[in-house]
Structure formats: structure tokens, C-alpha cells
């Protein structure tokens, strides 16, 4: 199993350009997430999905759009990139795990995409 993969690994954009980041998972997970990581800020949730065809906003959704047309893929789009979107983007996936009568999800992370917007 490849786990969670992200494409591309690096990208440089000019302000106003658009791009799509692709996340793929081969673990048949229901849930998928997009985070951004900035120095001193930890990981902040951008958007997430609880199943194919569904998406929801996270903590910092402005300037981003997402789609989950297939269960294994979760796309993050930047329609008009801004320098404030320079960051490292992580995708994660998870499924519901049930132990001792309680359910939780354990997230598995991809290697990240480093995006620079000039």
C-alpha cells in the first residue's frame, strides 16, 4: 500500500494563478482532510470530507475549494493564488475505528506539498 500520496511535491506560482493539489489514498478511508502548516501555527484544517461527494469547511477555508468525486481522491484548488497561501499543505485520511465501545478516527498523513506564491 502506498498510503496517502500527494501531487505535486513542490510548486511555485505567481499571484493570481490557479492550481490543483491532488491527494490520493489506497486505504479505503471514508474521511479525508486538507491542512496547511505555517511556522508557529501548527496544522490548520482547510476543508475536509466525510465521504464521496461531500465536503465541509474547516478552520481556514477562504481562498480554497475542494472536491471529492471519488472516494480515494481529494482535490484542493486555489482559484487565484495569493502570497498568503504560501505554505506546506498536508492531506490526511482516516476511517472510523471502534475500540472498547467508543469510536474515533486515526489520521494518516501524506508527505506534503510545498507551495510558494510569488
Amino acid at each position: 500500500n502506498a498510503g496517502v500520496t500527494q501531487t505535486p511535491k513542490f510548486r511555485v506560482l505567481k499571484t493570481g494563478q490557479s492550481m490543483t493539489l491532488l491527494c490520493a489514498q489506497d486505504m479505503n478511508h471514508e474521511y479525508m482532510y486538507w491542512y496547511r502548516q505555517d511556522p508557529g501555527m501548527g496544522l490548520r484544517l482547510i476543508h475536509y470530507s466525510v465521504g464521496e461527494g461531500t465536503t465541509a469547511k474547516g478552520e481556514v477555508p477562504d481562498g480554497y475549494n475542494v472536491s471529492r468525486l471519488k472516494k480515494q481522491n481529494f482535490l484542493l484548488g486555489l482559484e487565484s493564488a495569493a502570497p498568503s497561501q504560501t505554505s506546506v499543505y498536508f492531506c490526511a485520511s482516516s476511517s472510523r475505528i471502534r475500540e472498547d465501545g467508543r469510536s474515533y478516527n486515526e489520521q494518516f498523513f501524506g508527505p506534503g506539498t510545498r507551495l510558494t506564491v510569488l
Partner: protein
Amino acid sequence: AQSVTQPDIHITVSEGASLELRCNYSYGATPYLFWYVQSPGQGLQLLLKYFSGDTLVQGIKGFEAEFKRSQSSFNLRKPSVHWSDAAEYFCAVGAGVNFGNEKLTFGTGTRLTIIP
């Protein structure tokens, strides 16, 4: 709303010394707590988790963490660190999917440096 505080931005430890990384959480009910490690240029890897039962949990790579409800803490410990433990460590809290909340809230991370 749930939140996590990691009060130490950067910690330096000598190789072979013991380690404790602090994590304090805010959540109304019994939380689901996680510690992740991120090596340079890599994604996050789960070290250990707590959601019920024994308050001292063991994880991978010789790490352990203790849940203390009275102090709202979930500190990560290791008796003797190795140079390969140099990384960034993130504490996270979740509400559990029973409540329809599939999200995790992460702390800002603690960067660990190991000196010879």
C-alpha cells in the same frame, strides 16, 4: 470548542537524557488525545493515542504519555532520547466520531533538538 496548547516552542536535550513534552487541552468531555511526530521534510506519523482506560499509554519508538484529567494534560515522555528523535512533535485532541466530529485540533508543535 476544543483546543490544544503546547507551551514549549523549542526544547534542546542531550542524547541519552530524559524528555518530557507538555500538552494541555481544553475539551468538555473525555477527549481523544494524540501525539504525532514530524521528521524534517516529512508528513506526520502517529506516536500514540489515548481515549479511555489506563492513563499511561505506550507508543512507538519508546515513547509514552500520561493522561491527567485533573490537570487537562497529556504529556509525552521518553526515558532516554536518541539523535534520531530530533523532530517536531504535535499534540492533537479530537471529540470522537460518536459525536459526529471527525476533526482533530492540533497544537502549534514543539521542536526537539538533540545535542551530543
